């Protein structure tokens, strides 16, 4: 019998138990499968529980570990993937009714690599339909229902990786793979109170993942802590011949216990806390204070004044309309759950090519502007979101009037393909988590994780458990 606390252990601690055979992969997988089945529906977190294949994989892991063929820290660790990642032994629904019976006869590269590392894939996790590409404005935007925060189920778990966020938060799986086009890992990490790592564009293969926007989509880990995220990223990162955008750089990771050799220069852009919720502001300040001996903070840094929002809007609008043109033109978008999604794709079909190309041309000066900033600073810090999670029963625009997060860091980071780490840093309204984000230059994941490890050694927000019965 596994005690409840074990479901909230970091990957590294579970790995020790598995390697030393104090815990068996079959026992652990069975318990996670049971939780996915029993508790998953409470948060609308799960699309498919993969009991049969998971137990097969767990038995293999058990035999290998017993025989001394230990593959590494993910060997025997249960996990889930957002249901836009193709798997050959379960449907891949993209969160959308028109695709609820869709099947692929192959595993996405990320899934292949997780399996190769010995991870046990237990379930396909819920998501906002089509990763939000049709313009949803309400939590109830998935054929599996609104993703709900385990901290308070009257509130959204965030999107579009809603299932990975709530499943990790509720201890249904120790880690999950989410995806981000513009905010879809960071936001559910923040709203669900877990750690999310958005990798540099091209670090993780997109092969087998639903395409919303070829030049923005990224897969990345969501887990208890930064260390977990790095362990998972190391397993899935690297060049893939099936995805030309992938980098040869890869990501090797070994946890370094010591803080950075010199204080990291951290920029806090002007305006990032001016209009956020009071608890978000206070928790952000406390987080920086907790790191004061390892970071050198410069406040009120001017963020480059470029049309970040319109650029990401034009690119997602045009690429999304192209990616789902058949669905839009056939009228089958009317089968989507969110009323706004039923018409949201049509305007994208008429975005002028010049606007799309202008946005794509702007990405070069945008990258130069941000690169210039990163010559003076190692990282940029901000609250991940200006508010706690949105109420599940309200349109987003009606949730928190008057609240704003300042500069458009999420669109900017995604347009420039930059990595970011979101970590829980306290609680705000209605007992919901708040979060801090650090963003760095391309391929700075190691530095982000190192700082994240320092923060999570000094605080325990990432170890807090929601009231899961």
């Amino acid at each position, binding site marked *: 019998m596994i005690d409840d606390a074990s479901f909230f252990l970091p990957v590294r601690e579970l790995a020790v138990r598995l390697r030393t055979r104090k815990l068996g992969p079959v026992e652990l997988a069975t318990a996670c499968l049971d939780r996915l089945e029993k508790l998953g529906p409470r948060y609308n977190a799960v699309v498919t529980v993969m009991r049969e294949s998971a137990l097969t994989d767990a038995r293999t892991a058990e035999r290998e570990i017993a025989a001394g063929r230990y593959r590494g820290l993910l060997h025997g660790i249960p996990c889930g993937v957002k249901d836009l990642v193709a798997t050959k032994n379960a449907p891949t629904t993209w969160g959308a009714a028109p695709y609820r019976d869709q099947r692929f006869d192959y595993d996405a590269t990320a899934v292949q690599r997780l399996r190769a590392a010995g991870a046990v894939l237990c379930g396909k996790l819920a998501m906002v339909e089509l990763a939000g590409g049709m313009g949803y404005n309400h939590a109830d935007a998935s054929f599996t229902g609104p993703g709900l925060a385990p901290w308070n189920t009257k509130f959204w778990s965030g999107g579009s990786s809603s299932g990975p966020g709530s499943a990790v938060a509720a201890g249904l799986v120790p880690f999950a793979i989410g995806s981000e086009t513009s905010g879809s890992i960071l936001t559910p990490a923040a709203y669900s109170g877990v750690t999310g790592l958005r990798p540099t564009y091209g670090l993780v293969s997109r092969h087998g993942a639903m395409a919303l926007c070829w030049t923005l989509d990224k897969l990345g880990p969501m887990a208890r802590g930064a260390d977990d995220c790095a362990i998972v990223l190391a397993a899935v990162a690297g060049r893939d011949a099936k995805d030309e955008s992938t980098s040869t750089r890869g990501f090797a990771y070994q946890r370094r216990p010591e803080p950075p050799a010199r204080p990291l220069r951290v920029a806090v852009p002007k305006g990032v806390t001016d209009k956020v919720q009071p608890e978000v502001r206070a928790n952000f300040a406390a987080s920086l204070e907790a790191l004061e001996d390892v970071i050198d903070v410069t406040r009120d840094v001017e963020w480059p004044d470029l049309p970040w929002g319109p650029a*990401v809007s034009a690119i997602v609008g045009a690429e999304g309309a192209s990616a789902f043109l058949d669905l839009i033109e056939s*009228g089958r978008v*009317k089968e989507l759950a969110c009323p706004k999604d039923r018409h949201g794709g049509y305007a994208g079909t008429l975005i002028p090519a010049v*606007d799309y190309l202008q946005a794509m041309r*702007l990405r070069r*000066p945008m990258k130069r502007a941000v690169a210039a900033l990163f010559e003076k600073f190692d990282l940029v810090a901000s609250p991940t979101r200006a508010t706690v999670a949105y109420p599940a029963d309200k349109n987003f*625009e009606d949730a928190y009037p008057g609240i704003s997060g300042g500069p458009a860091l999420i669109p900017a980071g995604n347009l420039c393909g930059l990595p970011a780490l979101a970590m829980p840093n306290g609680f705000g309204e209605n007992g919901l988590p708040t979060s801090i984000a650090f963003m760095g230059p391309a391929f700075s994941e190691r530095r982000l994780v190192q700082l994240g490890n320092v923060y999570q050694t000094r605080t325990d927000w990432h170890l807090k458990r929601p009231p899961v019965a």
Partner: protein
Amino acid sequence: MSRLPQPPITDRRRFLVTIGLAGLSSTLVPSALAFAQSATPPGGGAPAKPDSAAAPAAPAEISDDARSLGEIVRRRYGKHLTPEQLEAVIREMDGRIQGGKRLRETKLANGEEPDFTFHA
């Protein structure tokens, strides 16, 4: 031709609505809010408050360009759309036209290529 009254683009709520309609989201909210955030004046000034304390916003017209594009949508996809949905699409078009203007305001050198590379 009927025209829905709209608050000005500088109104935050209107901006959010515009963005929401703009189908921007892979996480609509993050993107939408960030988009709205990007509309703050240079130097990080505050956008107009949409709460009850704020002065009521003057209605804004949907542009003729958006109406014209809306007519194309009606001809191509009208059978899939209710009149209310078509009107929402037109409002989104208007937001996209405003966004396009912002994209074109940034001058780019002739040699500034789109950030993707074609390989033969």
